[in-house]
């Protein structure tokens, strides 16, 4: 039933997208050119805030609800209804379809947390409002600045055509976590894992000791395209040209990248497992390395403490002397409301949810990276927390080399991402020919570019 449901869901989402595409002209035309007025102190405004963090019970829901409660205390005239996205699917995977459905019914959330891969679609089709037009560029810069400003590479991740459509909220970078105890058992102490060759050598040593593949890379599995983009960029390949017109899956550099990843599989060090099995491989002791989202740090740390082994982290490996280029996962906060009062209230909420106070809560409770990185420096309110979490360091260092997660143009951005994911899996794990597979994927994806 599941495949049928997902197919039908895709069709439904596609239909909704088409319908929205028809409506988008009006929403674009009505883009506000004048700045929205400030709220009067007694002006009561109700807004809806949709966050995929609310779909996850525990610290995720509690932290976001706690921040919303703090916001309402600070802004007594603004009432926020916080809601999780509709429908099924994994957390973070259905944010756009949920907004689309509600938009069709005429009650889209006023503020929504959307993942960066949908930036193009959000700005051009979903009716996300350009915040820099609504409140002025200076106000945006001021919000992103302050005593502890956003990291320069994080500031403009949700900018589109020179305008700020979303304020980056929470994201992670790819980090290579490893079981240092297992490596020590294989005779490797203080390993240098800065390049793929060095990672392969270390993984081979562990595999020789344990007799099973010791490395997981979530970038090369379906759903891991956000970090696969970084792997491509680290080897000089691009998934999409700078003019956003040409797909680059079939380029020589891209073929070389997947061939190198496939070699890890052929050498018996890279394990073929789906993303869930990968996330559980390191905690269970099945594997010794995993290149994955830094957001998993908390669950790995508790598994290491309980399992009595040492968890360490390294940055994303590079290809030889070329610098590694990490990409970000995660999401930004967008204003979707058409009503000036709700837009202003939404902006106030966004400013609050990306403030120093919010990152103190989000980082210490959920464990996400604080985008106001200087909070972790000496004198910052997250300094003590950062000292207690030394694994954070490679993640913070990587921000200096961060490049954005590219969103594909057009309504078929999800399908394009899916084509790439399947092609990479086929080459890396199932021994398909890299050149023909990637060229075919490029052709099919190119056909979906408007």
């Amino acid at each position, binding site marked *: 039933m599941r495949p049928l*449901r997902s197919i039908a869901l895709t069709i439904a989402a596609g239909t909704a997208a088409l319908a929205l595409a028809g409506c988008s002209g009006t929403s674009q035309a009505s883009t506000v050119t004048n700045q929205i007025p400030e709220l009067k102190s007694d002006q009561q405004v109700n807004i809806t805030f949709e966050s995929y963090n609310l779909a996850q019970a525990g610290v995720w829901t509690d932290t976001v609800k706690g921040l919303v409660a703090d916001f309402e205390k600070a802004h007594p005239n603004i009432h926020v209804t916080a809601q999780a996205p509709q429908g099924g699917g994994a*957390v973070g995977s259905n944010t756009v379809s949920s907004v689309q459905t509600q938009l069709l019914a005429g009650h889209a959330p006023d503020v929504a947390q959307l993942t960066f891969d949908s930036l193009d679609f959000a700005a051009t089709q979903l009716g996300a409002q350009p915040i820099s037009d609504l409140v002025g560029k200076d106000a945006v810069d001021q919000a992103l600045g302050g005593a502890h400003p956003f990291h320069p590479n994080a500031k403009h991740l949700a900018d589109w055509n020179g305008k700020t459509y979303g304020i980056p909220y929470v994201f992670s970078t790819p980090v290579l976590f490893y079981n240092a105890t297992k490596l020590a058992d294989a005779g490797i102490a203080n390993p240098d894992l800065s390049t793929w060759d060095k990672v392969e050598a270390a993984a081979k040593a562990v595999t020789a000791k344990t007799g099973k593949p010791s490395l997981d890379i979530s970038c090369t599995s379906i759903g891991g395209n956000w970090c696969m983009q970084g792997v491509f960029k680290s080897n000089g390949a691009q998934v999409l040209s700078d003019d956003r017109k040409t797909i680059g899956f079939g380029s020589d550099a891209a073929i070389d990248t997947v061939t190198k990843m496939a070699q890890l599989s052929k050498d018996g060090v890279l394990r073929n497992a789906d993303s869930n099995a990968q996330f559980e491989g390191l905690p269970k002791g099945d594997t010794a390395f995993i290149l994955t989202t830094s957001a998993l740090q908390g669950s790995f740390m508790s598994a290491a403490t309980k399992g009595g082994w040492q968890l360490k982290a390294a940055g994303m490996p590079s290809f030889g002397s070329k610098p590694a280029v990490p990409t970000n996962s995660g999401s930004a906060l967008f204003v979707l409301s058409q009503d000036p009062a709700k837009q202003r209230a939404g902006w106030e909420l966004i400013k609050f949810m990306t403030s120093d106070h919010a990152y103190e809560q989000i980082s210490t409770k959920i464990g996400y990276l604080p985008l106001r990185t200087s909070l972790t420096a000496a004198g910052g309110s997250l300094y003590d927390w950062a000292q207690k979490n030394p694994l954070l360091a490679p993640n913070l260092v990587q921000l200096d080399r961060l490049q954005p997660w590219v969103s594909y143009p057009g309504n078929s951005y999800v399908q394009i991402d899916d084509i790439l994911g399947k092609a990479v899996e086929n080459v890396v794990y199932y021994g398909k020919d890299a050149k023909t597979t990637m060229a075919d994927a490029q052709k099919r994806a190119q056909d979906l570019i408007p």
Partner: protein
Amino acid sequence: MAFITIAPPAQPGSADTSTVPERSKASGPTTAPAAGLRRTRFASLRLGSLRTVFLRTLPSHVLLIALAIVSIFPIYWMFVTAFRPPSDALSINPLPGPLSLENFQYVLKTIPIAGMLANTFGMALALAASQLLVAILASYGFARWDFVGKKALYLLFVGSWLVPFQVTMIPNYLLVSQMGLLNTITGVVIPQLCSAFAVMMLRQHLEAFPKDLLDASQMDGRSSWRTLWEVVVPNLRPALAALGIMLFISAWNEYLWPSLIMQKSDALIQVGIRGFLGAEGNNWGAIMAASSLACLPIFLIYIFLQRYVVDAFVRSGLK
């Protein structure tokens, strides 16, 4: 079968001869050795046929046992994982233990599970009751009267059953939204008031309903409406109970539609369970504990109404 014709051992001098076959009685005292011989022969025959029966049914029993294990194992694993400490959630030890209630405590602390179970129960009950009512009325109409377009209408019912829910999901959502029923159980129930499957099943039962009873009821002066409630429904009680249980279970397991409509409230248990699945790994211990609790009402139904449940699932496929 061969062994049921075996004569019981004759006791010489026994006063009770009632169990001795007529022929044995007629042959007098000489019957004992003959009966013994026959008993041996029959016994060996019985053994032989037992062996044949055993060998013949062995493969199917092995298959059934294997299927039963495959079916039961996930349920067993759910409880085993739920009752383990969270740190052992990924353990692959097939034996239960170490015993811990930590997962249940976490679930009770994190989500309002009692309220969720009550809401889901209310929704499933309302859905099952309304679908049953519509099915009774529709199938009675189809079975009782011949009218123009009856076949076409019935085909439309069947056809609606073949349309996947996802196709009608968005239009239904818009309708419920326009009716102002979002985030209400009524909004969940209204578009699903009629279950084409239930109509089809009940119609088949009603087709087999003795027409004489309907005619007799008419001759007694009952109207069609009274005949339905005083004659048909009481006689269909087992079928209605079976169908009702089946509708309740499928409503209980609903996820996508209720999660679309009940977006602003974490009112339903299936949504509550989903909360423990996350982008940063799944909390398997909590998922299993919440799922164990979600299964309890269905288990209770199964334990107390087992006969009807089996009837519902077996007969619906065979009738």
